[in-house]
């Protein structure tokens, strides 16, 4: 059971990372990045590093997503390249 879950989460991490750098909409990229952080948090929790998972969940998936959204709100939503 665990290794199937492991593989699903690992492939989700790669898909979300690729999505976050290819998507044109920066707000979407910020949200994809938050989802990526949450998947990383699940990976840490599976590996038994609960403290790191907690930090990743609060900093990576929580506050940094808000900061990205605030920055997008104050700059532009479309990327040029």
């Amino acid at each position: 059971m665990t290794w199937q879950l492991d593989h699903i989460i690992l492939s989700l991490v790669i898909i979300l990372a690729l999505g976050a750098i290819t998507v044109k909409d920066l707000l979407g990229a910020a949200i994809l990045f938050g989802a990526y952080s949450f998947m990383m948090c699940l990976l840490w929790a599976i590996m038994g590093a609960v403290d790191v998972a907690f930090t990743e969940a609060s900093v990576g998936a929580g506050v940094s997503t808000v900061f990205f959204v605030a920055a997008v709100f104050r700059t532009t939503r479309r990327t040029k390249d």
Partner: protein
Amino acid sequence: MKIAGLIVVLLCGCLLIYGTVDFPEWGDPASPASTHVSPYYIETTMEDTSVPNIVTAVLADYRGYDTMFETIVIFCAGIACIFLLRTYTHQAPETRLYRHIPTGIILRIKKGGKLPEDSTDFERVDLQWVPYDLIIKTACRVVVPFVQLFALYVIAHGHHSPGGGFQGGVILGATLILYAISHDLRTTIKRMSEKAVILLSAAGVFIYASTGALCLLFGVNYLDYSGLAAILGVDPVSARSHGILIVEIGVGVAVMAVMVSLYYNLSSVGKQDEGL
């Protein structure tokens, strides 16, 4: 140029993946990381510090320097953001929007118009973010105190469960950010002013560093909390546990203040007038 960049990135990626082949197996008891210091921590943490969560003991006691400078890095990030973004030359915006609370009508007041600043029937709303949502406001106001209580629990209970200053501080800062998003930036700044935020971020670092300096005064090494036994009135082993709690509180205060300060400056482009 784009293709050349792609080739370089792919090469570096392949080299990194090739480098991971030399890593020891995950959880390998014979790997260098698990053979030198880890057994010492696992065997003696309870006798040395009476802290059940070994991660917390390593983070704040055995590796206290690392954590102190991590806190200073976060403090520097907050200061750098203030330097880059904050603008002190205050220019009043051209037009302001005011909502008449009983009717919900929004007035647009041009520059030079009479502002209903002291009226209780009007509230100022942001130019870019105007929806009035009673449900979101009320729900967030109900949630915020419970999340803050949980953040304090995370800070205080770091000895026994996952958590500690960093996580608790981030959650505590996130509640203020949630309050700012659900109401508006001015309401939050009224509750917690910019000056208070900057002072608290420095105070957190000060608590950590001065706890270490206090240990020096009692004739032990910097950040060796067993020296605090005399003023805390406990034995040296419990003193290390209490010392960890003190520095965790310092970390929590600093991280909370820096997160709030970053949000204030990012969401208002340094004007701290109209935010997200």
